[in-house]
């Protein structure tokens, strides 16, 4: 399981970074969205696998709810990820709004062109 998780994180991070290094801001926003998934899964890996290795073979663990009969998994990474998901939602929403505002101002979303754009960054309302 950990191996599969590692593969997923690798792919997500590689694509996320690739998008982040692109030339247009929409792709960058998608890249950041992907990266947050990858980071969350990375934290999840730290809870170990959702099974326990015993002499008789692997035994599944249960969710971190005390009323469940099975042995629970590590709850801490889950709590951390829950916080991270909410924050990344806030970031995504803000970033997307920023894209709209930027487009209204500059009429394009090219990263290189924006870097060379030395107009004052005054926000105008439509």
């Amino acid at each position, binding site marked *: *399981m*950990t*191996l*599969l998780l590692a593969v*997923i*994180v*690798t*792919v*997500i*991070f*590689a*694509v996320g970074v*690739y998008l*982040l*290094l*692109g*030339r*247009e801001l929409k792709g960058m926003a998608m890249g950041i969205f*992907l990266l947050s*998934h990858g980071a969350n*899964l*990375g934290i*999840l890996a*730290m*809870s*170990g696998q*959702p*099974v326990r*290795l015993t002499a008789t073979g692997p035994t*599944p663990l249960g*969710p*971190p*709810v*005390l*009323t469940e009969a099975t042995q*629970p*998994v590590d*709850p*801490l*990474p*889950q*709590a951390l*990820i*829950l*916080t991270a998901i909410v924050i990344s*939602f*806030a970031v*995504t*929403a*803000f970033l*997307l*709004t920023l*894209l*709209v*505002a930027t*487009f209204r101002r500059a009429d394009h979303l090219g*990263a*290189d062109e924006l*870097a060379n754009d030395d107009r004052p960054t005054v926000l105008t309302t*439509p």
Partner: protein
Amino acid sequence: MQLTPLALIMMSVFAPAIAGLVTLFLPRDRTTPRTLIALVGLALPVAALLYFAQTLGVGAVEPASLTIPFVPSFNLDLAFNPDPLGMFFALLVAGVGTLIVLYARAYFGDDPDSLFRFYPTLGFFATAMLGVVLADNMLAMLLFWELTSVSSFLLIGWERNDRKAVRLAFQALAVTGMGGLALLGGIILLALATGEWSFSAAIPALAGPHESLPAANLIPWAFALMFLGGATKSAQWPFHFWLPGAMAAPTPVSAYLHSATMVKAGVYLFGRLSPAFLGVDFWAATLISVGALTMLLGAYLALRSTELKKIFAYTTVSQLGLFTCMFGLGAFTYHDEPNLVWPVTQILNHALYKAPLFLMAGAIAHAVHVKSLTGLRGFARTNPLLAWITLAAAYGLAAGPFTLSFAAKEAFLYQIYHAIEHEPLLWIVAGMAVLTSVCNVAIFVRFLTTFLARPDAEHAAEHHHDHDHAHDGWSVWLWLPALFIVAWQFAGGVAPSLIERFILPVETHALYWSHLPTVLDAIAHPSPPLAMSGVAVLLGVLVGVLPVLRRPVADPHDSIFPASVSFLSRTGWGVFSSIQTGNLRHYIYFTLTAFLLGMIAAALKDPAFLEWPALASLWAAPTGFIIASLCLVALVIAASLSLPIVNSRIVRVLMLGAVGMSVTGIYLIYEAPDLALTQLLFEIISIILFLLVLRMIPEEPPLAPVTGRIGRAAFSMIVGLAIGWTVLQAGAHADSSPGPAKLGDWFLTHAHYGSEQTNGRGGGGDNVVNVILVDFRGYDTLGETTVLAIAAMGIFSLIAAVPRRRRDRAHAVNPEWLTSSLLRTSMRLILPLGLLFAAYLFFKGHNEPGGGFIAGLVASVVLATYRMAKGPEALRRLLPIKPGALAATGLMIALATAVAPVAFGLPVLTSRTGDIPLAGADPFHFSTVVFFDLGVLIVVIAVSVGVINRLTEELET
């Protein structure tokens, strides 16, 4: 009332600053009371210190009884030690300061604004300087030391609108400030080497055998850093350039700070440390060479200057070099004593001729508005009083017979002569000393010949015109202090016993001569030093009379500071502009490259990081899990890889959604129901947002093909692999390491019931993740809710609400909202059921998967769907509060819940749990964290629904 020794010292040190502050309360035009208060501020220390010396004796009081603990954890105490050296300097500072107060009153005339500014600054400086020379604790000394730099900065930049003056002030502050930093380093090393933080304990420890010290190997470094500190302050080569620059200050300041007192702080430090560093090999070599070089350079530059204050500044530099050299020569021995001859008198002597010279420069500028020697031809005829006082002081500069200066110069020459017996190379220093004397004599001769010359016709006319100054009773103080001080020069030269009465109690090395030598003593006992003086006088008169070496030269060192500043700013700009390109992509490359370098460093440090973990811990899982997760992996990989390839925006967003949904599946496999629910709902809302935003941005023409795609892909792959590898290692070790118990286990045992570790209090809930969020890490959740609310505020301000008129017009054009009637009708069922489900999740959250976030998201999805089906007006009827206000309300509820327990004397975010019995049903589990969760829920709804609604409105109009 009996004053304790500590009270006397504290009064002496702080009286000037307090008096200066008091003058600020007077109205600006009350100059006379202002002057008198400032005068008391400086006369009081003189009286107190003299009383101290009379009743208690100099150096007889134990420093321990003069200590106030200040910051003991930093070894910083306000400890004082009025030993002979400190007492001498303190009396010099306070005594000259008293005269400067009177002089300043005459110098600034009755310009009330200048006096209003001047006296507080002067008092501030005097306190700082008294602190430097009296402090026993080395850190306290440094504190005062830095304050003198600050006051010097303020006074050099006196003309606040003069850019040149401000630049020179900055130069002085930078040089002395950096020196102060070096001194701090030196003090720390010295304290580490000896284990002592006060001079009175550290110096005897250093003077003893070094084997017993805690860290004797640090002593050379301590010496080097402390030398730097003293050399910058006392204007030693190559840092001397700041002192002539400091002449931009008003003349009272030049006379006081930049000749008589502050610049001697470095010399004071060398004198204070000289017993300690005698054992350091290069103490003598450094001090003698740097001092002698400074001495000759200063004298030469003084000879090549014409401006009065410049001449006196460079001779000050020269004299400071002499003092440094003098303490260096003290490292040799003569008759088993340190080779120091009347060092304190030497320092006093300088003040007794240099302060009058500066005072007279100010007086002359005041009287005839001439600042340069060349403009003063015939001055002795037009203004004999000022001219003759100036000449008397200049005679002291030339160390002529019947002045104290003569004795001092003889003492210095004797010192060199004695040291030559040990080290013949010092003949070079003897030569330099003679050349310095030549310059000084020549300067005096030039003053004499210029003043006595026949005045130029037009100059004479000018002088007489300028006599119609408004003179009041104070104007005598322009020249009276100088006359008073210079009188002591001659008193000391003619009748040394007059001076000795005062100086002997504080003199540190007066053993070679039992009394100060006069010119008669010197002639009665002819020796090589007398011959050197004779040669110097002959050559000096020659140089002074002949028209040689008269053209002013600029000191090449003056360009050091501007050049360093421009070098630093140019280099800084170069580095800045090569890193801060303004291009987002470059920043990402920089950051990730740094990350990769960190990974490489980690792998080098711990090679186990690169080992492949045991296979069993990577694969073990029930069969069903493996198949499901393999499918998810395939889905994630396919969806992710399609993102950079596909061109259609809609498809890309849907692929992004596919990745998110697969991640939800992974959370399920990892037994994280809360995460799966949250992720699922956030994913829905995020995808809706993405689609809305993309619709607002028209399809752009494809950008020109990006070059370097392969490099970009390779770099991304490396980053991905590095992070993936880290995840693999982390996961494998989480399973295999027997290590200490996980933090998670602690939360598992404390989620519901407490233990003695938590005073018996548990979280009271069964859903451990939820309990961690609202209870154990409640602060974190509060912060996160705040972030969410702040993001919402940012969003609402970035995209302003559509004006109502425009909105209504848009809806009038398109009154029937174009959605399927099926959806509209089914909303009647979806809305109540959805909100009911949200409420269920909300209340169940403490014990089972659910909670504020999830319930809020469910409600948001339902409301967003409702808005799609029925249009904006319907939503506004259902939720009539503005989203910004809603977010603020939610945040306030969460904050109030967090703070409420404080009213009951409980810690912030404490919760209480109980079961409410329900008739005919399971008891209702109720916890006060519900209110906290309610705030979270409201913020989530406000943000999600608000953003979706706002963006949709934008699209519709």
